[in-house]
Each structure stands twice: as C-alpha cells, then as structure tokens.
C-alpha cells in the first residue's frame, strides 16, 4: 500500500531486475561456471600459491611427503598344512628429519592363514588386520611379526601374502602446508650477482625481440600488400615459423648454427668469411674495439633475439596486412593526384593508419615475449648470457631443486608483468578493440 503511494505512475522504464532478467542472469552464471572454476583452479590458484611457496623453505625433494614405507614378507618356509609361519611387516620412516604421528597399518590376512599370535597394538576382525603404531621418530625402523599356521589353500596359492597391499596411514608435517615462513628465498635471489644481469637480459630480449618481430612483420606486409601471382603461396610460407612446433624450429636452428657440423658455419668458413667457426648459441660475447674503445657484442643473446623475431614476425605480419587491406584506397588516389611520392604516402598515410594496430601488437607481443620460456630454454638452456627471468624460474626451481627460490622468481615475474599490464591498459589506444 505504502509502496504504491511513494512511486508515481509515470516513472519511465522499470528499474531493478525483473524475474525474466533474473532467470537470464542465473543462466549466464550457470553457463560460465565451468570456465570460471577451471580458470580459478588452474590459473588463479597457482598464482596465489606462488606467493605461498615463495616464502617457504621448500626443496624439490620435499614434494614427497614423509611416509611410513612397508614391505610384507612370509617367513618360516611352511611346507605342509598346519606348519607355522610368520607374516612379517618391515616398516620404515622415509624421512630422516620428520616424525610421523598416528601411524596405523591396515591389511587383509591372506586366505588360509590362521593367526595364532598378534603383536602388541594389533587387532583382527575377521580377516581385517589393524595395527596402531602411534608416533614414530625420524629414521625409525621396525618389524611386526604375525604368527600363524597355514592351510592347503594358502600353500596352493602363488605368494598369497601379495594378494592385498598393506596400507599405512599417518600424519606428518608437510613443509608445503605448515606455517613456517622465511624470506630467505627472496634475499637469496636479490643478493645473487646474476639477478641484475638476468633482469637486464630480460629487458634486452623483450624489447629487441618485440621490435624485431614488428619491423620484420611490417616489411613483410608491405611486400604482400599488392596482388601478384604466387602471393597466396608466399603468405602461407611466411606463416610457417609461427605455426610449426617450437621444439622443431628451435632444434633446427641449433643444428643449423652448430659450430662443428652446422651448415651455416661450414658455409662461412669454407667461403672464407670467417677463419674459425662461430659458436652462435654458446659464446657470450665478441669483443672488438672501435677507435680504441672496447665494445662487447652479446652474441648468444643476439642470436636468440633473432630467433624470436624470426619466429613471431608472421603474427604481426598477418595483423598488419589485414589492417592495410582495410584502408580505403581513395586516400591514396587523392595523394597521388596531389603528387605525393611513394615514400611520402607510406610515411604520412599508411603509417598513421597502422599506428593503432602497431601499438596494440607492441603491447601484446611485449608481454608475450617477456613471458617466453620455451624458446630460450631450448636454444641455449639459459647459458652464455641469455638467462631471462622465466628461464631463471626453471633454473632455480628445478635445475637447482629449490622450489621456494623458483617461486620467488616467479613472483618477481608476476609483479613486473602486473606493472606492465597496468601501464599498458592505461595508455593503450581504445579504437582497435583488443
């Protein structure tokens, strides 16, 4: 009653969510739920977990939680029905520094084995055996013997004690889930001398890799802009580096540039361009001097950047070509009438039109190049001055088996990335719709 009086009739369109719209909303949430859950579990979860692992002293070996290992054997060598025998369980704590609490062993007594003597703490219900062992020390070992007699059924069967696996349960401190924190990982990676060089290499690689791919892509797009016979074929060919598996092209480059049996070095030495083979992926720097000033040319890093530009120019090529073909040709005809030369047309007409797509490509490629791991890992393994942050994650976490330090580097990667992304979203052009 009061609601009606407060709301005048001529309010305009109804506000709030009606029943139909609410149904639509729930349908939308339902349809998005699976995607949402899988992204949450596989992407958002690990991102947060990285922060957790990065403040934990966890090694690769700690991933296997401490457990009681058990080995079941039959002792006493029974030959006829009624002979006595012992089922022996040998138990061992797999960890040398963690105790395990509430250890319980469960097993099925094999058919035809009549139990005569139970060890302390064990109970037998039917054929189900359950032994409560309690807390065990680090490095603990023990044996449990189950005395009994055997029947014909038992003797006839092939190793009947193997019929059921004994199961041991117990609680142990898991370094991943306890509340012990340390900043040692971060202090270790930040104090390492190489960290700052890794950071520098990462930026060189990202900036020049992105720039190289863009420039090559722009050039290739100019080549294939006008129609000619064989254009479709060339366009397909130019996309090969991008669609082939990274593993295939990376190994091909390694074989091609190999200092001992590589084709390129053989060509260069046989044709007298260089006297000794060049180890393109293995030599950190070439030293030379201009007017007495010594310079260092980072050879392996340059080769890796060249690979990056070679592999990803097709992507920018495709985008730029698509954009160029949508530019209205009237403009060029008008410019032609006004006497603009071809280079002027490119500089004053094409480039401004392409600026939007070029900057979007730059942003996307910048981030993806920054994220790139496979290429460098396969080409040089991060050696010879090519270790970027992403390769460092692998190096710390898996090569040096220090998961905590690896996660700490991953946190650094993530923080740098978030910084870029925020900057880019602020300054990116809106009209390209990416």
């Amino acid at each position, binding site marked *: 009653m009061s609601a009606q009086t407060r709301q005048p009739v001529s309010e305009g369109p109804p506000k709030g969510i009606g029943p139909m719209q609410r149904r639509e909303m729930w349908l939308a949430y339902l349809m998005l739920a699976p995607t949402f859950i899988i992204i949450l579990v596989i992407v958002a979860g690990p991102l947060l977990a990285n922060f957790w692992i990065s403040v934990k002293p966890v090694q690769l070996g700690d991933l*296997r939680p401490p457990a009681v290992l058990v080995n079941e054997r039959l002792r006493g060598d029974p030959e006829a029905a009624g002979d006595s025998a012992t089922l022996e369980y040998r138990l061992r704590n797999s960890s040398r520094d963690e105790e395990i609490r509430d250890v319980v062993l469960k097993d099925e007594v094999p058919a035809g084995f009549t139990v005569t003597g139970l060890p302390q703490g064990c109970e037998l219900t039917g054929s189900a055996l359950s032994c409560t062992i309690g807390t065990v020390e680090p490095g603990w070992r023990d044996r449990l013997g189950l005395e009994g007699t055997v029947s014909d059924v038992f003797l006839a069967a092939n190793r009947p004690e193997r019929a059921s696996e004994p199961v041991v349960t117990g609680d142990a401190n898991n370094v991943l889930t306890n509340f012990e924190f340390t900043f040692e990982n971060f202090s270790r990676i930040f104090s390492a001398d190489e960290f700052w060089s890794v950071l520098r290499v990462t930026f060189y690689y990202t900036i020049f890799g992105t720039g190289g791919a863009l420039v090559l892509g722009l050039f290739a797009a100019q080549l294939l802009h006008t129609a000619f016979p064989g254009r479709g074929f060339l366009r397909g*060919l130019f996309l090969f580096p991008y*669609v082939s598996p990274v593993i295939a092209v990376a190994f091909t480059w390694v074989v091609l540039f190999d200092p001992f049996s590589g084709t390129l070095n053989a*060509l260069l030495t046989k044709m007298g361009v260089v006297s000794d083979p060049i180890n393109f992926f293995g030599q950190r720097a070439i030293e030379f001097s201009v007017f007495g000033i010594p310079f260092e040319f980072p050879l392996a890093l340059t080769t890796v950047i060249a690979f990056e530009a070679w592999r990803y120019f097709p992507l920018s090529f495709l985008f730029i070509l698509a954009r160029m073909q949508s530019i209205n040709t009237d403009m060029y005809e008008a410019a032609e009438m006004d006497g603009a030369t071809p280079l002027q047309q490119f500089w004053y007409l094409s480039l401004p039109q392409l600026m939007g797509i070029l900057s979007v490509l730059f942003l996307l490629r910048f981030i993806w190049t920054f994220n790139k791991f496979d290429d460098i890992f396969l080409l040089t393994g991060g050696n010879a001055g090519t270790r970027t942050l992403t390769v460092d994650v692998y190096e710390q976490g898996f090569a040096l088996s220090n998961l905590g330090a690896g996660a700490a580097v991953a946190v650094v990667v993530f923080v740098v990335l978030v910084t870029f992304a925020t900057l880019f979203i602020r300054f990116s052009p809106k009209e390209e719709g990416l």
Partner: protein
Amino acid sequence: MRPASILLTAVTGLLWGVMAMVVIGVTLTLITGEVALPQATAAGLAGLLGALVFVWRCSAAGAGGAPAWAYSAVVVFLVLMIASFAAPFTLPLSVVPVWQGLALIVFVAGVTAAIRLCLRDARFGPMSRYEREVIYIRIAKGIGFVVFTIIVALPFYVMVMTSLKSQQALLANPLDLSIDFSQGLSGLTRSYVELFTQFNFGRYLMVSAFVSVATVVLTLLLSVPGAYAVSRLRFPGQALLARSVLLIYMVPAIVLVIPLYAVFSQLGLRNTLTGLLIVYPATTIPVALYMLQGYFRGLPAELEEAGLMDGLSRIGVILKITLPLSLPALASVSLYVFMIAWNEFLFAFMFLDDPDIFTLSRGVVSLNSSEVPRQHLMAGAVIATVPVLVIFLWFERFLVQGLTAGSVKG
C-alpha cells in the same frame, strides 16, 4: 645526362649482381655439396654494366632491333665470364657441369629480370623524386622477397634434408644438403623407420593426437556456453568479465608451473595424461572464449529472438541457431586450439616422465642428447611439424581469419 641518374642505375645493377651471385652460389653449394666461392666482385660488375646497357638501350628505343633486356643479358653474361676468368663459381668447369651451367643461366636470367623490373622507366636524363622513389621501392621489395623467402625456407629445408642423410654423410660434408638417391628409399628414410620402430614415435604420435583432440573437445564444451553468456546474456559483471578474459591469457605458463607441479605431484596427477588434460584446456579456454564471443556478437540477435518467440529454450537456440551459424568460427577455434595443444612444450616437459605417455614435443626433447644422432633429431622435428603444417595449409583460410579475429597468443 645526369650523374645522379647514372649512379642510381649503376648501384641497382651492382646490388642485384652481388645479391644474385651470393644467393645462387650458396644454393649451388648446398645442392651439390661442392664449395662454390661466389665471385661477388665480378658479378657486381656484370650487373652494373648490364643495368647501364639496359637503360641506354631503353632510351634509344624506337631504333628497332632486339629488345633492351636481350642486350643487357648478353652484357651480364660476357662481363661475368671475363671478369671471373670463366669460373663464376670458382669451380673448374669439369666439376658438376650441369649444375654450374644451370646456375649460370639462373644468374643471368635473374639479374636481367631484376634489372628489367627495377629500371623499367629509368633513364639517364633527369628523373623526378617520384620516379626515383619508385625505383628505390622496387629494389627494396625485390631484396625483401629474396631475403624473406630464404630466411623462412632455409631452416625448413635444412630440417628435412638433414633428416634424410646418414651419419657418415653428415660428418663428411655438412654443406651437402642434396638428396642422395644412391642409398635408395630405405636408406633415405632410415631415420624415420628407426624412430618409429626403436624410439616409439608411433605411440607419441597417437598420444599427441589424442591429447590435442581431447583438448579441442573439452575447450569447445566449456567455452561455447561461456562465450554465449558473455556475448548475449545480460548479467552484472558482464563487461568486467569480457575484459578480464584478455588478462588471463597474459599470465605466463612458467609462473603456473611450480605450484601446479607441487600440487599435481601430491595428488598423483603429475605423470598422467589426465593432468595434461586439466591444464591444457585451462590455457586454451580464454583464447577460445575471446574468439568465440567476438563472433557471437557479430551474429544478428534477431534470429535468436525469433527462435525464442517460437518457443525454443535458450539451450535450444544455442544448439539449433547459434552453433550452425558459427561453424566457421568453431572451425578456426578448433584448429587454433589443436595447434596450441600439439605444439605445447613446457607442461609436457615438466609433467611427463613415463615414455609410454610422451607427447611428440616431449619425445623430440628426449632425442636431444649426444647419444642420438642429429638426423634422428631432425626426423623427429619433421614428424612433429608435418601434421600441423598439413592441417594449417589445408585450412589456411579459416586459420588466418581466426588468428586475426582473435588476436592470438604465442
């Protein structure tokens, strides 16, 4: 007569002469295995004089007789032979004479054609800025075509040819990238046969195919409803969601690897294909969702509204109207997801230890050791590349559309 015009003509000829000689000399070396030292200076001189003659004959047009390019070709040939003492590739004429002859013909024809294309309207008299720039651009484009084709095709050529060689042949002459037919078909394909019989590559191929197809199916099952909801249904948070999809595919895989490795190890999912099939769709769903929602937006909403009016449910509308209309988009998304899953390396490398469930990427990495000869490694690379390239060439149109429509990750 203007010195600038003459200089432009001369430089054009010089560039093409040197370029053609280097490219043809290297090609000759790689095809025959004989080291051909290209005589770049002689070739440059030949190109230079050929270009001058071409432009001179063009300006003297109307005099009748042979066309200008014919004079040019003769001059290129003669100058090259004289300046290089009749050995343009520094090989005695008795060595691989057929190939040398062929290379010579290709050189003369190539240089003449290039000169003719680049200097079509050139003259020795004054040229406007427009005319000069047209020539610059022709030269740049010509060189661009040659360089791009070589840098793209050479690695693939080396990959295939190395895989067809024997160990001895590779060590004896790394420059010889010809096909040695004398070893017969079984000799040529020895690496492939060994990979399939001894290195279990048939199984890797099956596993890769299974994983990729399963990833495609899972991705489509999850992303089609999601994309439809984002593009068609109104709900609070829609705009935010549509934008954050992009952010997700900027998250680097390497950042996810350590936590996933830790958790999957504890859950026993690490060394299993189930583990891979959980991770792969998670990395492809954002891309698929982004590509599909863009396409769904472009479909006319009236069709769907008509379906709703006629009594179809939302699910019915999606199945009977939206999906049939978006088959091209579904095709390009499927192909693209297939490619991502097929080419994926990092997770396969980190998660799989058991050779029975290696994917091809993981299998090829296991060949990268000093004990396995490199023709095997290259044969593995070819086996991993061929399926994806065949699919790409077959469906290129769809893929190119999809790639540009969806702004794709790599």
